């Protein structure tokens, strides 16, 4: 993988103070535990959360699935991705959430067609652009341009992340109470994705306190599924195979680990600056 070879920034981007987060915080490979898990190949699909049970991801603090990291194809040709990231106690969750909103606004010196440096710093090998579809908030979705192969040369895809409401799928007050009583905060919306080619991904993540300290992020994707009118709909046009799923796992886990390396410093420098600061 060429994740450590940084694509050259445009001169206008290099001139931004923000560019130091692109150049001075090196990307790292997965750790040995994660690589050892991936080396075993696809997981047993019986240990995956089935699309129709996707809300089972939401578990009380301290409870896990048997497989928290892995990928597999389902019999119907759809795919499953499970990722897990430990967020250590020295990373403030507030700063991560701030970044996930802040990166949707481009710096004032951005040039049209050059992408969004605020997004590029998160995963220099793959990320290109990221903004609200309506340029104001996430209500109409979030637009993203990225590749998934960590800079190996595949094309970048345009994606739109749409919100859906988990209460439409059975997230009840009782379930929310059970989760909050265990120490979790419950997000009642999640995202699903469309692309510049036919295909859909259903996504769900849970960020919650980790019994070992700090927080943890448990992420899942069901490739080939989307929500519609309170039901899940299969889209068989969605491209999916084990190589693709493995790439999604690696890309996702490397970028979340990478965010942990810079987000404290970024927040400290930018959170009090104007929203379009360079």
């Amino acid at each position, binding site marked *: 993988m060429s994740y450590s070879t940084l694509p050259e920034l445009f001169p206008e981007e290099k001139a931004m103070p923000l560019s130091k987060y692109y150049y001075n915080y090196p990307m790292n490979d997965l750790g040995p*535990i994660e690589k050892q898990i991936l080396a075993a190949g696809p997981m047993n699909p019986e240990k995956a959360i089935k699309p129709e049970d996707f809300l089972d991801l939401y578990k009380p603090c301290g409870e896990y699935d048997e497989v928290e990291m892995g990928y597999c194809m389902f019999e119907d040709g759809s795919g499953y991705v499970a990722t897990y990231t*430990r967020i*250590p*106690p020295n990373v403030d969750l507030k700063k991560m959430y701030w970044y996930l909103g802040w990166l949707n606004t481009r710096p004032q010196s951005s040039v049209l067609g050059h992408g969004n440096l605020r997004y590029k710093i998160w995963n220099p090998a793959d990320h290109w652009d990221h903004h609200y579809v309506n340029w104001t908030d996430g209500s109409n979705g979030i637009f993203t341009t990225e590749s998934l192969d960590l800079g190996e040369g595949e094309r970048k895809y345009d994606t739109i992340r749409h919100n859906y409401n988990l209460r439409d799928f059975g997230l009840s007050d009782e379930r929310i109470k059970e989760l909050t009583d265990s120490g979790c905060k419950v997000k009642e919306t999640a995202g699903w994705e469309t692309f510049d080619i036919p295909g859909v991904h259903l996504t769900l993540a849970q960020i919650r306190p980790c019994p*070992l*300290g700090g927080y943890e992020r448990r992420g899942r994707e069901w490739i080939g599924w989307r929500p519609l009118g309170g039901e899940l709909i299969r889209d068989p046009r969605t491209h999916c195979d084990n190589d693709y799923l493995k790439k999604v796992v690696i890309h996702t886990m490397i970028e979340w680990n990478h965010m942990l390396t810079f987000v404290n410093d970024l927040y400290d420098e930018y959170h009090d600056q104007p929203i379009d600061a360079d």
Partner: protein
Amino acid sequence: MMVLPKPPKLSPEEKKMPLSKYYDVPVSPPDPLRQQLIDAGPINPADAIRPENFLDLLMPPGVYNKVEHGYCMMPDGSGYIALYQRSDPRISDEMMGWYMRWMNFHSKSMVPGQGNLRYKIWMPLDHIDHSYVNGKDRSDGISTLETLDLGAGSKPIASIHHRIDVKDYGLSEEQIKAYAAMGYSIRIAWESFEIPGSHFCFDVTRPCPLGGMETLSREWIGWRPADGSLVRDEETPVDEEYLRNIVIHNTIEHAHLPKFLPKLYEEYKDQPLDAD
């Protein structure tokens, strides 16, 4: 999901000690990714480092073996343990160094025969006693009494941890200095037991590319050092269940330390060495 039992009850004398509150810090099962590796069963012995090649663990920064966390029986009937741990930002070198010495001394109200609460708090399910063999420093070894089955009822086994000089086992002074300059620390040791058997242990701690430090540990069960080489100790009891227990025990205890050590250090670092 692994459900851990409750730790054994402390004695009335132990309960009275201010230190006993650290015994109540909840112990957690292994993190889910290590648990996933443990659930996958023994590793392929072909992916283990053979005892005679133990120095192969000394790899450049950021380079790892295919298997860094797991266990297996080797073809000759000996056992192999691989553990990978990252440092925790809550623990400083000072804290760790202080605790690793401090827990070898019993406090003034500890009752002989009841073990060492300073060691018990580290792993309440298994730890019983810990002390310097000579009562003052590690030069003659460290004596330990513990189980490894998370309190499932096995007989506690007494062991002595002997530190040995890596210069006698293949590394020159210059090589050691070169590794130290890269931020590496290297520990080589072996353990003997109240029953027949020997374990050979090798740990490498080095900077982690993701930040902090990482420790690559290996244990060869059924091997011990002798006159500059490793010799097989056929009398060492070992099977897959035993090896799995060690991996789980060590994974849990490593992750438990950051939960209590910062507060413990603040409370006790300036108190007399025998403080309760």
